[in-house]
């Protein structure tokens, strides 16, 4: 029988999960949990493959589980799943350390990257070449943005909290909706359609790739996770969003708008079966680890204000209810 905990899933959660796994392995008599990466979706799929020792115990996820995943789980006999929120991940905008300073609003991003924008109430194809064209307060630097590719959960947050928000903020949403006869979905789709003329570059790789690309294109702006930025502050200069500088504090307080919760999902049927599983998840959400002064926070995770509730839920093994 398997005697180590196996987890899989999000590459965003991966660094935190490894930090915890390492500390767990070193302080407990259990073997160190195995943490696979491979993406949130793939991790949840693996979780839902069934019950038994050749299926994983925990799926890490940078987005909430989907109904289709829950259905798949149920189909395979995985009926009780525990949803554990471990904290928040801030998403920041940064450029080369020696470049200009930027203070963005979501509307700037929308007007810089959207395929169609609204100028004087008219819908027209976006031809802004520099950030100054978008907003006279921004430097007259060519627009070149490295945004996460559509495989990344981060892209969903970027679309929603930056582009869509910018779309609404700038009033373009209304015009789009009007143009589509009030169809909000169509309007949203128009909002999130990005330029394809090479100004907005999708990155399918990791933040290290974005960093390397910024190194090769000094005038570019990239999208990063807060923890990545904090580890590379000597190379990157962070931009403010709506006047707020991203930090664990500003994100925890909700001031900084672009962030998302991180989760892991536990297969309850494996609790008590896989040695160390219960201990591991309790250790993960303990104050020592996930608290505001724990190693996760020092690595850049925004600690969850409702951690106590999570700890209690984990102790009681409360499975998640239906998605609201």
């Amino acid at each position, binding site marked *: 029988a398997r005697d180590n905990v196996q987890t899989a899933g999000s590459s965003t959660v991966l660094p935190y999960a490894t930090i915890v796994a390492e500390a767990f392995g070193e302080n407990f008599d259990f073997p160190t949990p195995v943490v696979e990466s491979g*993406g949130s979706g793939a991790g949840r799929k693996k979780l839902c493959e069934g019950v038994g020792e050749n299926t994983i115990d925990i799926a890490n996820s940078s987005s909430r589980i989907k109904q289709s995943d829950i259905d798949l789980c149920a189909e395979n006999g995985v009926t009780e799943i525990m949803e554990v929120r471990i904290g928040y991940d801030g998403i920041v905008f940064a450029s080369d350390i020696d470049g200009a300073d930027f203070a963005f609003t979501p509307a700037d991003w929308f007007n810089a990257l959207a395929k169609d924008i609204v100028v004087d109430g008219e819908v027209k194809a976006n031809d802004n070449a520099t950030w100054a064209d978008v907003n006279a307060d921004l430097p007259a630097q060519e627009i070149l943005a490295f945004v996460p590719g559509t495989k990344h959960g981060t892209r969903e947050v970027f679309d929603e909290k930056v582009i869509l928000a910018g779309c609404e903020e700038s009033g373009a949403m209304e015009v789009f909706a009007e143009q589509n006869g009030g169809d909000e979905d169509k309007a949203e789709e128009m909002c999130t359609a990005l330029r394809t003329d090479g100004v907005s570059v999708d990155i399918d790789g990791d933040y290290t790739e974005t960093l390397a690309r910024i190194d090769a294109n000094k005038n570019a702006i990239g999208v990063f996770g807060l923890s990545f930025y904090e580890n590379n502050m000597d190379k990157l200069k962070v931009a403010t969003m709506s006047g707020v500088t991203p930090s664990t504090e500003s994100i925890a307080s909700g001031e900084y708008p672009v962030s998302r919760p991180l989760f892991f999902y536990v297969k309850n049927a494996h609790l008590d079966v896989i040695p160390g599983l219960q201990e591991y998840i309790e250790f993960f959400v303990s104050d020592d680890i996930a608290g505001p002064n724990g190693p996760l926070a020092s690595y850049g995770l925004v600690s969850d204000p409702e951690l106590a509730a999570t700890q209690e839920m984990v102790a009681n093994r409360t499975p998640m209810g239906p998605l609201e």
Partner: protein
Amino acid sequence: MSIGLLLLIVVGLGVIGYILGRRRALASVAGDPRKLHSLPSQYGQSVFLFTVVPALLLLIVWLLAAPSVIDGQVRGTVTTDGVSQSEIDLKMADVGRISDGLGALMAANDMSEDDLTALTPGDSDLRGQLAAVGVAVGADVEPAVFEAAKHKRSLTNSAGLIRTVLILLVALAGLAYAMTRIRPDFRARNVSEAVVKALLLGSSLIAILTTVGIVLSLIFETMHFFRLYPAKDFFLSLTWNPQFRGGSDLGVWPLIWGTLYVSFIALLVAVPIGLLAAIYLAEYATKRVRSVAKPLIEILAGIPTIVYGLFALITVGPMLRDYFAQPLGLGNSSSSVMTAGLVMGIMLIPFVSSLSDDIINSVPQSMRDGSYGLGATKSESIKQVILPAALPGVVGAVLLAASRAIGETMIVVLGAGAAAKLSMNPFEAMTTVTVKIVSQLTGDTEFASPETLVAFALGLTLFVFTLGLNVLALYIVRKYREQYE
């Protein structure tokens, strides 16, 4: 008896058979091997094969068939009317786990068979006990399931015993039968060669099995995908633009185009350089240069592709952009088909060079002599005599390189970017089918969405596409093959 031990015994019997067979063959002709049809060792071989092969085949068949036979027996006991097939499947999975668990439980707790029969799901915390020995059960154990599990366990146990006895019997019978067949005129060589030939055939069928496996593991999810996303759009749409909230455009053509374009440029780099390098190594280089340069170049094939990717991203991409794309007015993207193609070409050089070098080297010297004797220069001989003679092997090498090019991900991701585009401009960012298979499969989208499932459809499409290319290549090689001697 464990399978490993069983195997060991069977092979041991085989070895004994070999020795006995060899001895008996020699004895049958009073020690004069010339009177035998085959070599004495071949008689030994035949006994070995007769002992081992049928027993192993039986073992394989048994291992494949026994679980489903037992399953079928047990299934009857948990089947009740009105229960759906999938629910029964689930129950059967539980039965399997519990019956395995009972074994572990007995071993861990020193239980006897009687204790086990006495055990009922009601009277103790069975789930907890099973958990303690590392067996996960989804819910509390139902009595029917528990009975079925016990039934299964006893079936499995007796099946194991039967298996051991049966296989040893077959091995012994094979041994005895083969021994009786040993006579001076017994065609031992033919028999053992027939068996070896069957093994060779079997090996070549692994390729077919792999293909079947690949197609099967792709086809169901592909069908699932086409239920969610119209096939017409997949095959006919010219845009690739997946979205999170649905409404994605998943046209395959930009990806196929990117694949072809990148591979083409990569081959444009790898084939001439690789072929010329092979020619130089085989025909011009001194033995020393060759023995150093060839393994050195082969290192190129072993460098992890991520190194190439970073090389493309950091060095080649910006260089091409600054010195070619921008001055020529072909855009200012630092990731481009050209970048990825060039760098990938470097990686592929050894695939072309090493194999071609071996093949060129094995063209008989008399061909070279014939050409030199007519006053041809080395290069003329190479171009007009040696290369045509080596053509099939060279084509094989190029095909191998092309295959790697099509299957490569990391270099494309970092060198060519992630944007799917239909463009002729080699300095534009594009992407390939393979890259998108990886990224869609490992992405954050939910599994049952078209955005993820498209990976399977892409895999299958690429498979069919390359199959076409390979048929074409086979046809060309057949047409131009020249056989020396």
